[in-house]
Structure formats: C-alpha cells, structure tokens
C-alpha cells in the first residue's frame, strides 16, 4: 500500500530576555545551580507573577515576521501537572488566547521547490527547571535556574509531508528567529527544541491517522532521522494489520529508534484554567505598528534585493542570507570592494572554507569585512590576479598588515607593464618551438599551455589576459 505522511511540529524557543518571564531573576545560561532561582521561581507562598514586557515584544516581533494575526488580548492559563522541576505544580501558558495567531513560513526545499507551511499559533509560556537523575544517594537533584525562563512555543499546521520538509521548516524558523534576535536558538543547548507529531494514512484517505508525538529532539539531523524511523515503524504496524497507539515517544539517536515514554500524567489531564494571578494583556495598533517599524529586513526580502541589486544568482543569494551576519558581511565587502559578484564568490567560497576549517562563526572571522573588501578592490583594479589574491588571503589570516602592504612586501603586484610581458612572451615562444608550430597549424588549445608557461615564468604575477593577447599577436 502507498502511504502518505502527515507531520506537525511544535518548536520551543527560549526567548533571550535578561530576566525571567514572571520574576526579576537572571536568565544567564550555565550558572551554578539554583543561583538564579528566587522566591517566585521556587513557588514560595505569597509570591505573585509580574509579566516581563520584553517577552511580549519578542513574541509580537516573531508574529509580525511570519505575517501572523497578533492577539490584541492575550490571556494566561495554568497547565497543571506534578513534577519536581515545576515547583508551583502548574506551568503558566496561553491556551485559548495566544499572543500570536495564524501565520505562515515560505520554505525552499532541496529540489528548489517552494512551499508555504502554515503556523497555527505561537504562545508565551514559562520553562521548567532541570532534573538530574545521577547518583545523589538515591535522590534526584533539582536545578531551578531554568524555571521561569520565557519560551515561545510555535505550533505548525499538520501540512508537512516529509522529513525534508520538516527540516526545511525548522531551518527557516531558525533563520528568522536569529534575524529577529529574539533567541540564540541553539538546538544543542536546548534554547530551541522540537516535538514532532507524526501520523500516516493511505494516499487518497482524507481522515488523519492516529498520531504519535516524539519529544525533545535536539538537532536538525535527528529530526530527519527520527521521522524516517517513526514512519517506517508505523507502516510496519499498519501493514501487519495492527493499530497505532496515540502516545509520546522518545528518539534514541544511537540505536536510531523510537520508544514509548510513560506519560507524565494519566491521560494527560492538565486541567487548564485561567491564571487568576495575572490579568489579561491588551495591546493596541500603535503598539503593534511600533514593533513592526523596528523589524529588520527579513531573509526572503533580503534575498530578493540581493538578486536585483547585486545581480546575484538565486542560489548565491540564498546562501548569503542564511544568516544575518553573513548577509551584512557580504554587503560591506560588495560595497567597499566595488564588485558584488567577486565579493559573493569570496564570501561563499574561500572565506566560508576558512571558517569551516577553523570552526568559526563569521562574526569571529580572522579577516574582517573591510579587509576582504580591500582585497576585492585590488582584484577589481587589476593590481593582482584572482590566483595571487588567494596567496594574499592566506597571508591575511595571521598578518594584520593591510592588503596593499602585503602585496607590496611580497612583491605580488600583477605585471601589466607591456615591456615586461613582451619579454616573457618572447622567452616562452623561444623555449617552446613545437607548441608554437602546433598553434600555427591550427591547434587552438595549445594557447592555454603557452599562457601557463608565461604565468609560471612570472610566478603568477603576469596579467593572463595581456599574456594571451600578446602571444597570439606574436605567433601570427
């Protein structure tokens, strides 16, 4: 039987506010346990939540970036369950009136196909603490530094039909969140986490199949693998005449399989009710427009502009806009260097290779944008050839001197003096009588060899265009 897959994603993103969602505790990552957990975070009696305005602004920023309806009136609710890393016994979240309503994301798939994937909603809620189940004389250790850190939970429509689409959606979400500067969104550190809802149904069937939920997957690659594995598991069960049980599962990346998790609560009965300690939040059009006016240029718009303004290919533009830092770096190089195409080739080529090799972000690049721009300018004005530029580039990594100083110091200036080039060409013709004869007999491709000889003789410094013209002239 032919099956189709239906996937919906729930993504939790830690908002990068300085203080917690409902208390003035610090949110810094990686501090000593419980040094950022205060009376409210510990749920001591008599403490009350006070809402952080920055979390609201960040959520609205995200909503506007995905063209979503913004809830002018958001209401908080209590989601009740017992777990030691949740001292209050409930999580404050938004059930019926989330801050962000329906929106959508455009994703580009590997085969170049574009797809619009709907976002059902995004709501603000608080994170729980961390339980450590190592050996503490038969006890569990609880660290509440993370308790109360603001989260935005972004829920997609069940419109994703493959692992590839799921990963493309997540990557796009990640890019937008980073552009908006509302979260680090680092999956390995848990500041972006993903739950995957999966069901399958025979092609043509309109009813959804029973779904399972795979919790807390922490890398793009594992999301892809977990989906493949879970789809196969469901197919095998259904093809053997079995039934899928609606449940929460975990993905074990080492064994590449999913397994059932015991649920936190019998039948997940969270007994939601409106949070009596918080009043509804109301925002007006002025607020929304003020947030909109502060939005940065987003990746889709930037890509379109790069294609028209800098005449870049679709592919190059999409690589350059994949992070805001890279896009900004490129623009500096293109503008100061005077040639966008050369700038794009260097940023996506040699620079990217260098960063990959040393495992650096572009913001940590040993060659800043201004310096790469001077290198491009010297290629553009024919001071050096593209090949020599690679030598200069290598030198620039450890040498803080300016591009011009390096070219001068190493004597790398391109030879454009026609007298010198004439000498070179004459020497090559004298040394290679056979090849010269072949060329004269009409073997056009020999010219490449002869130009190569001249370049070698000049240690790469001759201008290859000039050499080519002069060679042809002399061999007529």
């Amino acid at each position, binding site marked *: 039987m032919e099956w189709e897959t239906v996937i919906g994603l729930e993504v939790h993103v830690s908002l990068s506010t*300085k203080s917690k969602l409902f208390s003035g505790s610090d949110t810094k990552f990686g501090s000593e346990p419980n*040094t950022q957990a205060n009376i409210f975070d510990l749920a001591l009696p008599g403490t009350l939540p006070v809402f952080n*305005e920055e979390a609201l602004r960040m959520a609205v920023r995200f909503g506007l970036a995905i063209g979503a309806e913004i809830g002018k009136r958001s209401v908080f609710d209590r989601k009740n369950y*017992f777990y030691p890393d949740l001292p209050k016994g409930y999580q404050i979240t938004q059930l019926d009136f989330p801050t962000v309503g329906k929106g959508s994301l455009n994703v580009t798939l590997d085969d170049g196909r574009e797809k619009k994937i709907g976002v059902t909603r995004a709501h603000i809620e608080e994170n729980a603490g961390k339980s450590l189940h190592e050996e503490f004389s038969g006890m569990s250790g609880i660290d509440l530094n993370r308790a109360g850190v603001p989260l935005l939970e972004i829920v997609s429509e069940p419109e994703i039909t493959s692992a590839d689409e799921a990963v493309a959606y997540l990557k796009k979400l990640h890019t937008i969140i980073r552009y908006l500067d509302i979260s680090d969104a680092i999956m390995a550190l848990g500041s972006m986490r993903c739950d995957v809802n999966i069901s399958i149904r025979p092609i043509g069937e309109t009813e959804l199949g029973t779904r399972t939920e795979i919790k807390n997957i922490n890398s793009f690659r594992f999301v892809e693998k977990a989906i493949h594995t879970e789809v196969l598991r469901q197919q095998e069960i259904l093809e053997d005449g079995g039934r899928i049980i609606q449940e929460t599962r975990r993905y074990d990346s080492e064994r590449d399989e999913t397994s059932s998790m015991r649920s936190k609560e*019998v039948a997940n009965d969270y007994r939601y009710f409106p949070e009596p300690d918080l009043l509804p939040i109301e925002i007006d059009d002025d607020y929304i427009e003020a947030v909109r006016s502060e939005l940065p240029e987003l990746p889709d718009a930037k890509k379109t502009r790069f294609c028209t303004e800098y005449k870049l290919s679709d592919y190059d533009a999409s690589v350059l806009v994949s992070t805001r830092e890279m896009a900004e770096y490129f623009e500096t190089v293109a503008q100061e260097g005077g040639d966008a195409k050369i700038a794009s080739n260097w940023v996506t080529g040699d620079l990217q290779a260098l960063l990959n090799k040393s495992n650096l972000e572009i913001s940590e690049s040993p060659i800043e944008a201004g310096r790469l721009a001077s290198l491009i300018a010297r290629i553009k004005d024919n001071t050096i050839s593209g090949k020599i530029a690679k030598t200069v580039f290598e030198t620039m990594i450890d040498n803080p001197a300016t591009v011009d100083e390096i070219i001068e110091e190493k004597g790398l200036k391109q030879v454009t003096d026609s007298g010198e080039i004439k000498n070179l060409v004459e020497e090559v013709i004298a040394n290679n009588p056979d090849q010269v004869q072949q060329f004269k007999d009409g073997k056009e491709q020999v010219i490449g060899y002869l130009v190569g000889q001249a370049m070698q003789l000049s240690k790469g410094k001759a201008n290859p265009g000039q050499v080519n013209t002069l060679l042809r002239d002399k061999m007529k």
Partner: protein
Amino acid sequence: MALDKSEVEKIAHLARLRVSEAESDEVANRITDILTLIDQMQSVDTDSVEPLAHPLDVVQRLRKDKVTETDQREKLQALAPDTQDGLFLVPVVIE
C-alpha cells in the same frame, strides 16, 4: 451528574491527595453535590455573554526586563529538607 468512586480515585491521584477507602464514598457524594450546583449554573443561557478571564476589568501592568533579584541560594536552601552541590534533592522521579 454523579461521580463514582473510581473517578474520585483518579482525581485524587492527579491532585496527589490520599483519600482512604472509608472516605471515598463521602468525597464522591460531596463532589456530586458540587457538580449538581454546576449543572444548575450551566442551564443559564450565556450565548450573548463574553467569557471572563478575570473578574477585575483591568489589564496587566508590565514589568521592564531588568534583573532585580540577587543570589539567595544559601538562605533558600536552608528551607529545604535536603540539598547537595547546590541542588535541591527530591525522591527519585523517573519518567
């Protein structure tokens, strides 16, 4: 709407309350009384009434995003029955 003993047990479990066998009939009766009252309230026609999230007709005041709390771990952990390496210790919970 009447509540039976098994439902009382389930609710007690969710709320982490211990209700003894002897008490459960009485608890079931008392909750049933409350549900009867709720049934009566449910019979009111509320079609034209907006749901109320809070009885006060005011909106939430917002707090500036500033760290105002300092580290009070020592004092707060003095209240806890057991701690180690800065962690609160609780009976083992494994999902």
